[in-house]
Structures are given as C-alpha cells and as structure tokens.
C-alpha cells in the first residue's frame, strides 16, 4: 500500500473541490476502497473523508412520498429503516442480503453504487486489463465463470452493486454534486456500458459525488421482490439476482412492471422485453415463465458461465411470482 493522507472537508462544496484535484479518492465506508488500496489498484495521495460531512447519513421522507437517502446511509440502516421496508421491500432485501453483518454496518449506499467490479483479472495487480488501460479483457479467453452473460464486451465484468437493480426498478434517481453544481439523473443512467467506456462503470465526473438517492413513492398497489442466487448461504456475491416490481389490477392483470437483473451484465440489466410480456396480461406461472425466458433471450454466455442463464431465469421467474403473489411450484 502506498502512503496517503486522509483529509476532512468542511462542507460539500470543499469536498467536491478537493476531489476534483488529481489523485484523490472519496472515503465513505472504506470497504471497497481499502481493498483497492491494499491491492495497489488505487494509489491516491489523499482520501477525502466524506464522513466528516454531517447530514449525509439520514433517510428522510419528503413531500410527495419521496424517500431521500443520504449516500452515507449504511446497508444495515437501509435494510432496517421502516419507511424502506414498508414502501420498497425489494430495496430493503437487496441491502439485507449483501455481504455480512459486519460489512453491512460499514458499507454505504453511495459506496455500493460506486464500487469497482470484483473480476479477478481486474483485481489482480499484475494484470493490466482493459479496465486498467490495457488492450484486452482477460475474461474472454480466461476463467469467466463469474462474468457477464448479457451486455458484455469489450469488458465482461458484472456490476457488483446489490442495490442498483432495486433502485432502478423503483425508478429512483441520484443527485450528483460536483464542482459545477448539482445534477439529477435516473439511477439507470448512472451506469456506463463498457461499450461506451470500458475503464469506468458510471458517469461520475472528477470531483463529483453521489449527494443523495431519491426513491419516489411506489405506484398504487405495487409489490416488489428481490431474490439472489449465491454459491454460499452468506458472504458471497450473487451468481444472479432479480428484482420485480409489479402492480396488478382487480382482474389480476399487470398494470405496472419493472424487471431488473443484477450480476449478469456489466451494468444492472433491465429487461424491457419481460416487462412488455407482463404488461396487460393476467399473471400466472406460464406468464412468469415466458417473461423470464424473454429476460434471458439475448444471453450470450462465455466458455464457463452458461450455467448462469438458467439460474438468472429462475430468479426472474420467482421474483415475478413473489411480487405478484402467485405461489411458485417446485420445478
């Protein structure tokens, strides 16, 4: 690890000014950043400690039913907050299933969205891959068991954020604060496809930080579910995750649908084709099957990760059935 200094900004404006300087990193929970420092994948001269700023660790209800979540809210805080549990259970569950209790006590919502990928080629300090300015993605010809099955190329990482699929499904937006002021974007637009720029995972500009996460009130009658498949019971990244938010009318027809997958693509992967199949149709197991098929229809596995396709399909199907209140049946 290289030497670095930790600096405490006085306010948000000075924090973003400090971060706009070259070779600075924002320090929040420090979970992923410390890993990056120890593996010498990042060697900033200064860490700008956002925890020095007050007020970024709260969840507030603002008029209109919007929840405003501070970027320093921890995953455990998010998972346990009554307002989140009641209005957005899928979001609460996505936080609750991440990592371990110890990590969830430290890791922040902002850090979860801005963390770097887990790819073992990217994490290896001896490998200069596409994401580090090199010329190739080593996963393509290498051991790609945990890599992308959708939207891959030229990099085949999967985005590691547990929260992002649920936030996208909730139609949440982010307030980004930088030296040029604040801008607001949909969470879905925050993430950058490697086709645009393989070296980054999001649109944050130098000096910019996530200042708030805003989650609008759910549509009337909407119900949500988050499911993830892991290799272990705990302390593991998902092999595939799925969020479904559905609203059904009295006839049992779907009037609102959001289907988003995690851990399958370099960005959180929304499945509009699945949503289209659901909308206007009466929800039953056959419909859920068709929607799940559609969600994975474009999957293009690499040599070692085709197994993820049926797993992702199962997660989508189950999330739809659970959100729609239809009993699943063992296959």
């Amino acid at each position, binding site marked *: 690890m290289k030497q670095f200094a930790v600096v405490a900004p006085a306010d948000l404006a000075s924090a973003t000014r400090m971060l706009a300087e070259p070779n600075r990193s924002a320090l929040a929970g420090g979970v992923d950043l410390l890993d990056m420092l120890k593996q010498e994948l990042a060697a900033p001269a200064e860490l700008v400690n956002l925890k020095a700023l007050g007020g970024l660790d709260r969840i507030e209800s603002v008029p209109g039913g919007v929840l405003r979540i501070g970027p320093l809210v921890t995953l455990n805080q998010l998972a346990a907050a009554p307002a989140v549990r009641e209005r957005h259970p899928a979001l609460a569950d996505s936080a609750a299933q991440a990592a371990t209790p110890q990590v969830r006590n430290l890791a922040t919502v902002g850090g979860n969205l801005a963390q770097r990928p887990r790819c073992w080629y990217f994490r290896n300090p001896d490998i200069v891959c596409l994401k580090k300015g090199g010329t190739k993605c080593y996963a393509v010809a290498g051991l790609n068991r945990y890599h992308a099955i959708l939207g891959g190329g030229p990099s085949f990482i999967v985005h590691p954020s547990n929260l992002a699929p649920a936030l996208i499904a909730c139609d949440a937006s982010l307030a980004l604060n930088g030296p040029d002021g604040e801008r607001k974007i949909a969470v879905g637009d925050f993430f950058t496809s490697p086709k645009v720029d393989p070296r980054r995972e999001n649109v944050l500009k130098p000096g910019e930080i996530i200042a708030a996460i805003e989650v609008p009130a759910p549509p009337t009658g909407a119900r949500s579910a988050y499911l993830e*498949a892991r*290799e272990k019971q705990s302390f593991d990244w998902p092999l595939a995750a799925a969020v479904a938010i559905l609203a059904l009318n009295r006839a049992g027809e779907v009037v609102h649908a959001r289907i988003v997958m995690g851990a399958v693509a370099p960005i959180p992967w929304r499945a509009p084709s699945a949503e289209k199949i659901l909308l206007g149709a009466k929800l039953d197991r056959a419909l859920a099957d068709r929607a799940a098929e559609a969600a994975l229809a474009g999957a293009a596995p690499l040599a070692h990760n085709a197994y993820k396709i049926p*797993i992702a399909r199962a997660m989508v199907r189950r999330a739809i059935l659970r959100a729609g209140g239809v009993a699943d049946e063992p296959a």
Partner: protein
Amino acid sequence: MAASSSNGFRVIGTRPIRHDGVDKVTGRAKYGADYAFPGMLHGKVLRSPHPHANIKSIKIDKALALPGVKAIVTSADLPALPDKMEAAGEQAINLNHLSMNILARGKALYDGHPIAAVAATSPHIADEALRLIEVEYELLPPVMTVEDAMKPGATILLPSLRNKEDGPDKETNVAAHLQFKRGDVAEGFKQADYVIEREFKTAMVHQGYIEPHNAVGIYNADGHATIYCSTQGSFVVRALSAAVLGIAEGKIKVVPAEIGGGFGGKTTIYLEPLSVLLSQKTGHPVKLTMTRAEVLRATGPTSGSTIRCKMGATKDGKLVAAQCWLAYEAGAFPGSPVGAGAMTIVAPYNIPNILVDAYDVVVNRPKTAAYRAPGASNAAMASETVLDELAEKCGIDPLEMRLMNGSEEGTPQTVGPPFKRIGFKETVEAIKNSPHYKSKLTGANRGRGVASGFWFNVGLQSSATVNIHTDGTVSVVIGSVDIGGTRAAQAMIAAEVLGVDINDVRPTIADTDSIGHTDVTGGSRTCFATGWAVYEAAQDCVRQLKERAAKLWEKKPDEVVFENGMLSPAQPGGELKPMSIKQIASRLARTGGPIVGRATVNARGVGPAFATVCVDVEVDPDTGKTQILRATIAQDAGKAIHPSYVEGQMQGGMAQGLGWGLNEEYFYDDRGILRNTGLLDYRMPTCLDLPAIETAIVEVPTPGHPLGIRGVGEVSIVPPPAALANAIYHAVGVRMTELPMSPPRLLKAILKKRAAGEAQAAAAD
C-alpha cells in the same frame, strides 16, 4: 467451575475455562506477526508469475540500489543439498526439494513459487524493491492435472525425478506407485451380486487457516539464530531450517508463537529460513509475513485427485471385493498424501479381497502440505458414496450396511496387521441412536446422507516437565503448541494426577531450548502423546512427593499413600496428619529442594480414529444450490479430556469437510495461474453458512494408554463430503462424482438428469 465428571475422574471430563482464553479474547495473545524487535527489517518475497518456466537470470542491482533496501537473497545464497531422501531431525525428506520450494533453483514450478526475498526498512520499500528485480523466464508448458502429467510424453517438471517401476533412465512426473493387496479381487467380484464402479474428481483445496504464515529471524554474530514464528512444530522448524541453511540444528532456537490455525499446513517451513538468511546478511532482525494471496498461491493446499473405486457386494449386503485406483496431485514436488488415501479408502470395512493402486504425481501447483487427515477425505468421497449406492442396490439401510461390514478388533487393516480395540461400529450406533437420525426428514428436494471415515492417528515423541512451586501451584511445560485447547487438556491431566485444582495449574509452551524434543502437532497426536508425557511427569512428581513426605515422617516412601492431592501414612492413626500438596510444597527446601517431574515418551500403541456423520440437505433444483439443514457427527475420542474441545474438533473438522464438499476449489486458468487468491473468491464456510453441528462423543478407550485417549483432531473431516453427496442424491436423485458440488456443477447434473428423463418420456410416447 469444577463439577466432577463421571467414571471416576475428578477433572478429566469437565469443562473448565481454558488458560489461554482471556489472552485470546482480549487481544493480548502474541501471534507470530505481533513480534517486533529494535532495528527490525521487513522482508518480502518475489514470486513467479508463471506456473512453469526456466529461470534464465535474476538481476537485483536496481532493487538493491533503492534507498532502504538492505539485502536480497536468491537460491544462490542457499547451500546445494543432496537430491535424495535424507534425515532432517526426525523425518526423512528430500532436502533439495525442500530448499527448492523455499527459493526456486533454476526453474519456477508453480504460480507463486518464491524467486527472491528482500529485506528493507519498511514493508512498503520491500514491496517496491520486488518490482525492481528483473527475472528473465523461459516459459514452459504448464502441467496442471494428474492425467496430463501421467500421459506418455508429458512435459517433465523435475528432470531428476525417477520412480522404481520405470527405472533409473526414465524421466517421469510419477514420483511413486504404491500398491496394497489382499485376497484376489477378480475372484471376489465373481461372488458379488452387485458391483458399482465410479470415477471421482476432487478439487485442490486449502486448509484455510486465518493467520497467514510469518517468521522473525534473528541471526547472532556468534552463529546462533532465533526464529519466532507460528508453527505446529517448533522442533520441525528448527530441523528443517537448519538443513536448508546448512546450520547445525542446535544453533537454532525456535520460539513458537500463538497459532491462528494450522490444520496441517504449518508443519513445514516457508519463510523461516529466509528470515534467518536475510538477518545473517543484514545483521538485523528480519520479519516476513505473507498476504492472503501468498498463502493461497504458495502454501498449504491438499491434493486434488482422480479416484476410481469399484466395490462389490452380495445380495445380502456382504462386501466381497474392492478395487481402487488413486492419483493425487503432489504439487511441484513429490509428497502427496496418496499413500494415506490408499490405506484409508476401504479401511473401515472388513473386505476379503482388495487391490489398491496409488500414484503420487507432480504438477505445476504449489507443493501440497498436510491437511487434517491428509488424503482421507478424497478417498472417502469415493468409497463412501459407492457404498451408499451398494446399500441402495441391496435394499439395506446405509448404517446397517456399515454395521454388517464394519471393521472391529481383529479385522485386518489395509496395510496388514489387525486392528486392536476400535470404536467404529460404536460411532455408527451413535448416529443410529441420535435425535437427528431418528427424526423424520420431510419436504421436497430434501435428502439425508450418512458416511463414515477412518484415520490412523500417530504417537511419536513428546517431552513434559511438571514443576511443584513453593506455594503448591503447579506449572506444566510442554513443547506442543496450543491448537484447539492443548494447554487446557494438558493442565487437566496434571491436575487429575496431582489432585489439585485446575486453576492451580499453569501450562506453558516452551521454545526448543527449554523443553525436550517434541514432535510436530500432527496426526492427532498431541493429547495422546504429550498428554501421556504430562501424565508420566505428574506421576514422577507424585513419586517425589511421597519421598518427601516419607522423609518428614521418617518413613519409607512405600509407607506413604497419595490420593486426591493428599499425602497420608499408609497405616492410619498415630500423630501424623495427612498433608496436602500445598502444605508440603512450602517445606520442600527442608526435604531436598524443589520438585520437578519429568517424562518423555515415544508413544506406541496409538488408537485409530473413526467417525460417522449424518447430514440433511435441501437442494434448489433451479440453481443447484445446496443448503445444509442439519448435521451430526459421532466420533470415538477414547477418553474426552475436555469435552468442549473434543466437540470443537469434531465440529471444526466437519465444517471444513462440508466446505470442501460444497464450495472450496482452487481455480487455475488454462495458463496455470491461480485466479481465486482471496477468501472472497475461495469460498470457505463461515458460521453463517452452517447449522450448529450436533455431536456425539463415543468413548472406546485406547488399550495401553494410561487414560485411554484417542486423537480427535482429524477424522472429523473425512466423512462430510461423501455424506453430502449421499444426501444430495437422496434429495434430487443425482450421484455427484466431482468435488466441490457447487451450484454450477450440481445444476449441470440436475439438468442432465432432467433432459434424460424428458428424452425417455418422449421415447415412451
């Protein structure tokens, strides 16, 4: 607490608080990486990024010129050693191979193989210096599997390696072929009504000790050296380091630190000679500690393996023949535990006809080290699942099948001589009678599996000293490090013999200058052998105490009785009042001076260990994920000294075996580079992944041991992978033959079975 135990013991069988407990939970206990000395330098190791390469040159000038860098060593700084098996301390070992694993000589043989070591004023400078060392490699094709290594014309790892079968002229990757034979398997299979034959593959796995390897070396100008390190055997570190460095054994002192897990992986050396060599070059103490990635890339693992197992039974369930073929990855140098695999694979059963062939094969992976019952879990995965299948064919309950065929006193072992009194069938009965096995398992995709395991255990040498202090308290000094409650168990044995309170006994683990030779903590031998030495040393104290009382009372020693910590005249009555140890302790000066009890043992008559386990699982047929619902282990402990630590060993070994079965796996890519070099990608179970493991201690005393102890440290890891495979079969109907049975692998098997079922249904239409 000192609630008295059953069957005649006062301390043994109770559960006092361990003597090292407070230090460990308050962070005061000193582990290897905690040592610091004035002027200490920090060392780092440069490792090969290639799995197989000739080393053409190593240029260190630029690195040496970096300010703060004090010394750099390569294999050129180590003496050349004979390329043959030689005695080092108490074991026979190929010292050339050992030395070449410390620092590569001419060839890099695995991803992570040490090339050079640097000492600098800070670990960061040492790290920086590693990048400035220029190594020119000539890449060679990596040989990663036993199949590839055994092929005719395979790329050769060690040009000087020969085996007896192929003769002195043939280059080979097969270091040894062992064969064990009894009866006539061809005839045996003729008697069988059912024969099952399967091929198994198990992945290379790591012991997963949480504390990485470490060493501080201090070389003195007088030619003596001291090593502080975390190890399972300070005398092994001394002997092996001396051999590699070319220093006389007696000139090295090893001070064992507290140990944060070993499981067999800390029975050899990696950093220890480097710390001394760098200290010798710089005149400073030098400390080296590994990162997790270094631990996974270059220490430990146990062999991945390919095993073929064929067993035959008559209709009524009698096993009549077994034929097994085992090939184990040794890593870069010979020495896989395939011999143990071969000798354990069918050992729990009385089978008249057996033929077992075993191959020790070098591959471009780290040199394997011992791991808890080394080699036996791989083997049991094969034989215990084939046995489950046979039981099913015969329509016999799998536990009954084990009872019908189980080894007992007089059954010949795979190596020939018959077992003495063993407790195998008792472990099967204990599972049969457990609340778990008696409970009914219901629900879709759920299944129950059982399996058994055998481990030899060893005895070997131990020394112990027991001192009676002037206040009547007792100190016990041993050379075995504390893994899993060693201090507590040894103190309890002394307290039992001396009749004193457990809190009046203070156990100490001494360095190699302060206690007699004590072999490595391995083979589940410590409680058995060191415990025996402590028992005898305490008896030595009793003998001396009687002499002193006799002196005070002007009697003969045999006219004094010692019972429950009290000395009294053999003939009751008269003026003489019984004396406690405390009372006589203050009068030792007047009767001839201090009392020191001593004993050494080369313990024979070791009691083999058996365990039987039961596991309930639920499988998600859409994802291939297995959840363990309930797990129980029954194990023969001979005599449980501290039952909590016996249960801890049973649960710990079972947890490791379950991880081995479900998730753990070294991922090498096709270039031979290890890809999962951290514990996030090398998936070990944590307490969140497993249910509380239920235990049943079985006590069938080892004949000949004064307390009947049997080692308990290892056998618990043997049955779990097979029990899991059996449970998975009973849950979803697929017979798994590869470890780990992780979601990708299990899902593939489930989908294959489903497709076959659909094809069959279609054909029937």
